Structures are given as structure tokens and as C-alpha cells.
């Protein structure tokens, strides 16, 4: 409970006594590359496989002859857009980017690099953390969009290669009864998750005390807490938005 209070104080700290906007723009650009571009590979792999598995599992569980096969496409589409793309990718994002952020900030803390910034009169929290949060909020929705397309494509490839659904049926399935709001919802989730992962991981890293061991602990805690926050937020958003 105390650390939740401290977390909110930390968020406030990001906005007092900031540096110039120009400084941040360059930092945000660098962080976007580090956070976004470097996550593309893992997101591609995971989302294609998840789409493929969803398609095959759905087909396998469709035993009634009354249900048309195109439903496989519909199910892959809805699962992907509502849950798999934003949420599962967020868990992967927490594992990769969250641990990275906490490790980096933790190391900077214990090697006194954070103190060095403070002594120069730089607001270290804002200088180090704000660009990471903004870069995450910019790049993560892009990753989710990519994951969505790839997952649906993965379902198509797996479904048609194994012959559980014809290409025409799958395409028909992913186009029928399309609810546009689901896309909006996925992107809202993406923004919320990106904020949670980056801010929670930064918080864990920024307040690391001790040595290398504690940096490791901070990384692990960052991932765990981010995952919990993602799932909680997923539940709350589902309640609020549907």
C-alpha cells in the first residue's frame, strides 16, 4: 500500500521542473527505437503463432456440423483484437521492455549516475523516465496493430495449410459482423498497458537500493507487478468499456 502511494508521488515528480521540450524530443526518439523497434521481432513471432494456434484449436473444438467453418475466422479475429493482440503482447512487452527499463534505471541508480544527474540540477526522474513512458505510449499501439494483423494472418496460414478452413471461408469469417469499436478498445488498452508497464518498471528501477543483486530483483519485480497491473486493468477496462 505504501509503495502504491510512493508510485503516485513518483508520477507527479515526472512533471515538476522538467527540462526543455527540445531535450525530450531527441530522447523520446532514441527510446522509441530502443523500446519499439527492438520489440518487433518477438512480437512478430508470438502473434503469428498465437493466431495459428487459435485457428487450429477453434477448428478442433468445432464438432457440430451446424456451425459453419467461417466462424474460425471470426473467432480468431475477435479474440485477436479484443484480447490477444493488446493483452498477450503486453505480457511479452512487460517481460522484454519492463525488465530492460528496470535493469537500466536500477544500474544507473546503484552506480550513482542518477545522483550525478541530480547534482547537475537535472530532474533525473523526469529526464530518465518521461521519455520512456512517452516512447512506450507511442510505439506500443503500433506493435499491437502489427500483432493484430499478423495474428489474423497466422490463423489464415495455419487454417488453410492444415485444411480446416478454406481461404474463402476464412476471409468471409473475418469480415462478417465486424464491430469497429473493438479496434478503438484495443488501442485504448494498448495505451493504458504501455503506460502501466513503462511507469511501473521505471518506478521499480528508479528506487533500487543496494547492488547488482537488487537490480536483478527490481527487474523481476517490475515484470511481475506489470503483469498483475495489466491483467487488473484488462478486467477493469472490460467492465468500463463494454
Amino acid at each position, binding site marked *: 500500500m505504501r509503495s502504491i502511494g510512493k508510485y503516485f508521488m513518483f508520477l507527479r515528480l515526472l512533471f515538476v*521542473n522538467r*527540462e526543455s521540450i527540445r531535450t525530450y524530443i531527441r530522447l523520446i526518439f532514441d527510446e522509441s527505437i530502443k523500446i519499439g523497434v527492438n520489440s518487433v521481432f518477438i512480437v512478430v513471432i508470438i502473434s503469428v503463432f498465437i493466431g495459428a494456434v487459435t485457428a487450429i484449436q477453434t477448428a478442433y473444438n468445432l464438432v457440430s456440423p451446424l456451425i459453419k467453418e467461417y466462424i474460425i475466422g471470426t473467432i480468431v479475429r475477435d479474440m485477436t483484437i479484443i484480447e490477444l493482440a493488446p493483452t498477450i503482447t503486453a505480457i511479452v512487452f512487460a517481460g522484454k521492455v519492463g525488465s530492460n527499463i528496470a535493469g537500466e534505471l536500477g544500474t*544507473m541508480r546503484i*552506480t550513482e549516475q542518477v545522483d550525478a544527474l*541530480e547534482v547537475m*540540477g537535472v530532474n533525473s526522474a523526469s529526464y530518465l523516465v518521461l521519455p520512456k513512458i512517452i516512447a512506450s505510449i507511442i510505439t506500443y499501439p503500433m506493435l499491437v496493430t502489427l500483432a493484430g494483423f499478423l495474428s489474423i494472418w497466422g490463423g489464415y496460414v495455419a487454417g488453410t495449410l492444415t485444411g480446416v478452413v478454406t481461404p474463402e471461408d476464412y476471409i468471409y469469417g473475418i469480415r462478417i459482423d465486424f464491430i469497429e469499436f473493438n479496434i478503438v478498445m484495443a488501442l485504448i488498452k494498448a495505451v493504458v498497458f504501455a503506460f502501466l508497464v513503462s511507469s511501473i518498471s521505471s518506478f521499480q528501477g528508479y528506487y533500487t537500493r543496494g547492488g547488482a543483486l537488487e537490480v536483478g530483483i527490481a527487474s523481476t519485480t517490475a515484470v511481475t507487478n506489470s503483469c498483475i497491473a495489466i491483467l487488473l486493468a484488462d478486467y477493469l477496462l472490460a467492465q468500463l468499456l463494454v
Partner: protein
Amino acid sequence: MIEIKNINKSFDGKQVLFNIDGNFKPGQTNLIIGASGTGKSVLLKTIVGLIEPDEGSVIFDGRNFTQGDRQLRTEIRQEIGMLFQGGALFDSKNVEENVRFPLDMLSNMPEDEKLDRVNFCLQRVGLENVNLKMPSEISGGMKKRVGIARAIVNNSKYLFCDEPNSGLDPQTAILIDHLIREITYEYNITTIVVTHDMNSVIEIGDHILFVFKGQNLWEGTKNDILDADVKELKDFIYANRLMLALKEKG
């Protein structure tokens, strides 16, 4: 000149600093010495404002830093250079970017002027042709030199060094000590060095403050430290056989 007045600090009910007073003049190397765990680093961090004292104040040339508003504190901090124990170089930046960093953040110098200033400072600390090396690619002694260059690049009026020669061989340690002293004299900087190295004390101790368990027990210069009549200080100095031998020889 830096004045510290009646500094007290506790952590979780355990008092670490007790009523510490001191004056540190410009153009001389001021040393804070004492055994491990007596609160030297806490004192230094309190002076630069990384730790807030529970009581007392730190005054930089008549400006009260401890009670100052944010603007005054930022203004004073921009005049401070600090060398950290491990160098604290930013490990995602190369040597040149590290030294240039305070200029990037705090000045609006044109780029080519910045580069000249950076090269001048690197040269001053005896480093050439390492501009593009990363901190992980240079030795401990070089890191300290880069740290010093970064600390003085913005024409700092105050220089703080936390154990500048820990982890260095005796020869390099003395080179670093001398470098700090030369820079202090040359630019009339108010320098405070925290150390527990008796070599540094004898080499560069223009003004020495001895801290024992959070208390300021003795103040003086390197010329009178060997004759000091404080038991704790004697124990500290003569813990070392070499010093004892020196003393016996007179």
C-alpha cells in the same frame, strides 16, 4: 566559500551526523577524513543536496542552499561539479558525450565551442584520443579523469570528490590527487574531498576535517595532523604501520 552549520541527520531513528560545523575556503583542497561508516559520504551528499539534513544549513558564498527555493537550488547546483566514487559516467554515452553533457543541459553554447571546451578539459586531465570510447572500454583511473573533466567542464565553482582514489594503485592515486589540487589552485575552486587515504592527507591536505562516528572531532592542516592530540584521530592515522614508522623516525 562553503559554510556548513550544525548539520544533523538520522536514518530511521539512527543518528549518523551530529552537529557538524565547518568552513571550506576556495583555492585550497579541503579534506573530510574518517574511518569507514562514520558518515563522510552522507555528509558530502548532504552538502550537495542529495540528502536533506534534519537540521542545520549549507551556505554557498552567502546563499543558503538548504533553505533556498527551487530556483536558487538549481542555480547553485549548476555551479557544482562532483566526482563520484565509481566515476558515475553515463554508460550509454561515450567519453566526449559524458563530458559534454553538463554543457548540453545547462548552457547554450554553440556546438563547436562545446567541443573545444570538452577537448580542453579532457586534455587538462591528461586524456587524449579517447573521445569516442565508451566508459566500459576505459580503465578505472581513466574513468576518474573523465569524471573530473565532466565535473569542471561547466566552469564549476565548487568541486566535490568522494574517495577519488579508491580502487587505484598508489601511483595513479597520487596523480589523481595532484590533478584535483592543481585544478583547485588554477581555477580557485572550493574543493571538498572525502577520503580515508592517509597518502592523500599528507599530499594534498590543505584543510582537514576529521569525522568520527558522525562528529567533527578535529580540524587542521596536513602540517599539524601528525601531532594532533585527539585519541580517535591518532588511532586513525597510526592504524597504518608505515605512518607509525614515519612518526618514530620523527
